């Protein structure tokens, strides 16, 4: 079974530039997550999709971050404009389902994109 795919693996940009990350979840997984992991910390959820609808984006800095999941499969996360504090690893994860009735599910993570903002 193919895992969660992410690209690019590494990205270096200057502050105020824009950047986009792409994620392809495991086939059949309805729920997709984007996490931000700053060095030395655990992952922090940015946004969660159920199919192509947003379930939770309470921790997404909406003035600069945006995400979409067209057709309920692939997803892109964009930062515009980037700040120094956005330097982190951006992880995409997927799970079969994460609704109220069946929350005992594991999440499968991609390799992440390491973003460095100079």
């Amino acid at each position, binding site marked *: 079974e193919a895992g969660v795919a992410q690209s690019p693996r590494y990205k270096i940009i200057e502050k105020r530039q824009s950047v986009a990350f792409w994620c392809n979840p495991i086939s059949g997984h309805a729920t997709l997550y984007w996490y931000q992991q700053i060095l030395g910390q655990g*992952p*922090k959820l940015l946004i*969660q999709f159920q199919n192509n609808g947003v379930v939770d984006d309470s921790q997404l800095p909406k003035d600069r971050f945006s995400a979409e999941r067209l057709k309920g499969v692939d997803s892109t996360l964009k930062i515009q404009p980037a700040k120094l504090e956005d330097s982190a690893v951006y992880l995409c994860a997927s*799970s079969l389902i*994460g*609704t*109220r009735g069946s*929350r005992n599910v594991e*999440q499968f993570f*991609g390799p992440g994109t390491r973003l460095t903002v100079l």
Partner: protein
Amino acid sequence: SQQGEEDPQALSIQEGENATMNCSYKTSINNLQWYRQNSGRGLVHLILIRSNEREKHSGRLRVTLDTSKKSSSLLITASRAADTASYFCATLRGGGTSYGKLTFGQGTILTVHP
């Protein structure tokens, strides 16, 4: 905000020894999960324990959960050099609207020396 706090922050042991990591959390939970992260394989799910369970085993892993103390422990027995990684606990909150949202702790860095 980080829900879970792992203890210790770093742990260094010899191959063959047991490693114990602890996690404390603040709110009621639906379940608690442990993940491992290393440079080679990224973040990988290890084990999930539901709020109505007290202990769970998977291979060399043993997880306990004490909801009255809001704490969990992960025991790795007979450790191997390949167990060297960061270990995170993640909680899924109880109640109505949390869906599948996990809140991760800061992690414990485990180093197993050959």
